[in-house]
């Protein structure tokens, strides 16, 4: 019975997707209700799995989908980290999306694909082999494309085209890489790393480049980051989901898997690949931050910030050593919570006050205080101000760098934090300290169902990111969970 639990994790969003597609627009209330219900049920299931996994129980479901190729779903501690994040944020983002669109056009389609995205992200998380991972990774591309082009205007269509060009080319490279490696060393199970010793070094390096190149597209690693700022043409809930959970995280998570579960951190270091990857990640961190400073559009600024922040995870993965690994994993969660907060706030501002540019932000704190407060927490977290969660990530990454003997990492982190302040603090300054432009009346954020559903999700995630920092040493906090993973020897 319990062997089917991983399958249930996928079935729940699938059923929610089918319901969304099938439900006529006139029954939108039922669609909303079922979406939230399924998200809650999944959250409960994840809670149960968390309790089980803490006791060291892994769930696995296996099926030979093609001769010689197994489809493996495996719920272990590291997968649960990602699943918990995506499930929690699914619930939040669904509530937010319902309020964001109210009763707009094409929503059956939107929520259908939204759920398929969640399905793919969950699948990515619980994949037990590289090929299973690829299946969901590709499905994720397909499920997000209709969301990116959702508005149907010229800008979205261009964004959709760019998005597909990058991601499909990336996954083709990834597929070539895993099939090549599989041809050489047999099945690539994450739980049982292959023996790479018979493979020539040069081949290993080439395959590594293919794999990281393919995954780097979704993780928006330099120079494959171009699609991400363009994809901002999508509606805010999509940006929130794409940037916090689904797409970029799938890429970053994949890189973690490749480095730690396929190659093994030791091999990566022996091949001399860890340092170049760390340099690439550092370059992306600084480049993304620099570009973010130059943006006037709030969503674009956040997008470049994502480019930069996701590379923290890659940086942590590429530095050999358990402390950096803790930093990488914990940032996967922290960045998700903080970034979704920022995007949901930006969406709410655009939706209610039509604020889209940084220069229009003056006095927004007086008009939508709750939203701006959430935004502030998220922004401070991104900068790395204690006690918000971002501080924990940066602390572990920095210590990991020192542990690995790469002290320059501290400089990168410090530079990035400086740039983070440069692009976030002016927003906070304008919003709180300058008088409002025009004659917008303050928005009644906490009265009226729609307003509340629009504002509170961001407040919840803001509090969560505060909590993840404040209570970092409590059981089931992201940091504790990650330490459990690392202590159990999951990351070699």
């Amino acid at each position, binding site marked *: 019975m319990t062997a089917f639990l991983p399958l249930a994790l996928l079935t729940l969003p699938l059923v929610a997707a089918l319901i969304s597609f099938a439900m006529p627009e006139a029954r939108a209330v039922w669609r909303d209700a079922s979406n939230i219900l399924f998200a809650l049920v999944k959250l409960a299931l994840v809670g149960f799995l968390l309790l089980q996994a803490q006791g060291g129980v892994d769930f696995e479901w296996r099926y030979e989908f*093609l001769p010689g190729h197994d489809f493996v779903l495996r719920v272990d501690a590291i997968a649960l980290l990602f699943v918990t994040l995506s499930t929690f944020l699914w619930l939040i983002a669904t509530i937010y999306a319902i309020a964001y669109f109210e009763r707009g056009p094409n929503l059956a389609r939107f929520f259908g694909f939204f759920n398929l995205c969640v399905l793919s992200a969950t699948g990515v998380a619980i994949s037990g082999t590289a090929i299973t991972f690829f299946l969901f990774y590709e499905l994720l591309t397909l499920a997000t*494309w209709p969301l990116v082009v959702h508005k149907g205007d010229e800008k979205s269509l261009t964004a*959709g085209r760019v998005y597909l060009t990058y991601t499909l080319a990336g996954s083709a490279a990834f597929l070539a890489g895993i099939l090549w490696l599989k041809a050489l060393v047999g099945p690539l199970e994450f739980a049982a790393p292959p023996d790479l010793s018979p493979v020539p070094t040069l081949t290993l390096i080439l395959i590594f480049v293919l794999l990281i190149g393919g995954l780097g597209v979704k993780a928006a690693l330099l120079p494959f980051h171009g699609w991400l700022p363009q994809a901002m043409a999508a509606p805010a809930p999509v940006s929130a989901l794409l940037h916090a959970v689904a797409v970029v995280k799938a890429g970053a998570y994949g890189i973690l898997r490749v480095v730690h579960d396929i190659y093994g951190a030791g091999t990566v270091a022996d091949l001399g690949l860890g340092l170049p990857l760390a340099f690439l990640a550092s370059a992306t961190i600084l480049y993304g931050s620099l570009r973010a400073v130059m943006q006037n559009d709030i969503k674009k600024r956040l997008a470049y910030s994502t480019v930069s922040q996701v590379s923290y995870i890659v940086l942590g993965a590429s530095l050999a050593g358990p402390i950096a690994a803790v930093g990488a994993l914990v940032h996967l969660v922290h960045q998700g919570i903080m970034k979704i907060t920022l995007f949901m706030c930006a969406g709410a501002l655009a939706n209610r006050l039509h604020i889209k540019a940084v220069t229009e932000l003056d006095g927004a704190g007086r008009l939508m205080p709750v939203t701006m407060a959430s935004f502030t927490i998220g922004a401070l977290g991104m900068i790395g101000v204690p006690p918000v969660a971002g501080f924990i990530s940066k602390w572990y990454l920095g210590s990991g760098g020192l542990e690995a003997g790469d002290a320059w990492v501290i400089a990168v982190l410090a530079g990035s934090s400086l740039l983070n302040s440069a692009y976030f603090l002016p927003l906070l300054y304008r919003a709180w300290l300058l008088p409002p432009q025009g004659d917008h009346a303050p928005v009644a954020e906490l009265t009226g169902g729609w307003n509340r559903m629009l504002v509170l999700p961001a407040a919840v995630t803001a509090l969560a990111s505060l909590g993840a920092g404040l209570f970092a040493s409590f059981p089931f906090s992201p940091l504790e969970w990650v330490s459990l993973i690392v202590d159990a020897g999951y990351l070699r």
Partner: protein
Amino acid sequence: MSPLDLLVVAPLVFMVLSLLAGGWQRSLLALAIATMAALSVWLMTLDPGTAHVVGGWELPLGVLLRADGLAQMLVPAVTLTAGLTGLYALHQFAPESHASNAQTAAFWPLYYLMWSAANAAFLTTDLFNLYVTLEMASIAAVAMAAMGSVRAALRYLLIALLGSIFYLLGVALILSRYGTVDVTLLAGMAEADFATALALALMTGGLLVKAALFPLHGWLPPAHAAAPAPASALLSGLVVKIGFVITVRLWFEGLAAAATPAGLHVLGGIGALAILFGSLQAIRQESLKALVAYSTVAQIGYLFLAFPLIAGAGHAWAGLSFHAVAHMIAKAAMFLAAGLMLKAAAGPRIADLAGLARAMPLTVTAFGLAAVSLMGLPPSGGFSAKFLLVDAALRQGQAIHAAVMLIGGLLAAVYLFRPLAVAFSGSETPAVPAKAPSMVAAPLALALAALLLGFAGGPLAELATGGAPATVAQEPPPSLENTVKTASEDAQ
């Protein structure tokens, strides 16, 4: 009587009945679908290799019908494709609509004739009988193409006739050399001498014309693009596969002795060119149906690209069978969906499709799902096929073949996402005349079938390899140690 006879004879009976049916066309079709579905199921349950001599005439004079894995996959796929296309055609060539009386009278006999020809071609092992089925298929196909454009049909007929001459010339050579034209007997007798090689070359040349392999594809796009949607579906789905399957029977069974690696590689190379050329042409098309037709030219390339991989490691044979089936089903779905979309759109161009995703979501979904399979993205039959082929190519060190297949998939994404993006664009919902439910359901059902093929990979691969010719690499059941062992040997 054996199901093998009935699968060929029953459609011929229905052909005669359809001439007499008048207003009973609908009931006749229902009867035909039920009969053929039952026979197909019966066929699938037969032991692979089950053979039956027609009319009790023993070999070498008699005609042998045989159910090998390839036929056991293709014949049921024909039933599915032809049956659902028939349901669609019922409304276009409705007996009660007096608008196109001549076409209505002509369509149904041709439809059953083509069905019979396809089944006969997949089941027969007699080269001369295959010539007759080729000509049966040609008559039906040309006449159907003539419903759209007489000029294109005439061109098609002449080039098909020329192909037949070449084929027949080869058959004459084989007969004079071996005194038999049965593939199963030839398999034991054929030698690698000049006469056999010449015969193989002549027959292959003739068959490649019929299979529309680049550069002999010139007749296909005008004929397939101009024909009515159900006719296009059958032409692209069924007819080109006939030439392909006979080529397979020659190269891997009957005349395998004369099939040199060099020859196989030439065919594979031409297939690679076909993929690239067909895709690039499809990208350039402005008309939707021409785009879909050129996509057929590209997809045929995969079938031949697989030729040099058949004898080596991996599961190329299963991949090949998968591709034939998946392309048949998905391409039929796409042509039917395109037919519906063009009826609703203002013109034949891709740019005329704006807003159709809102106006006819089910049809655009069918088009999209079929596109997923044709692009070879998971989960779909097209993916399983391409995956097995790329895997086989990499396991045999044929990196170029693998790269061409992956690039072909990317190019397919370029041309197939274009109509989809246009369908998603715009903010207005065009008014679309209501369509009969079965007309909408047929392409959707086909597209879903192409998708579900991706989930039945294991059992279907087993079916495909049952009774496969001796030249096909037969692997021991894959197990972990086994693969690892062979892989490490490869590496050395």
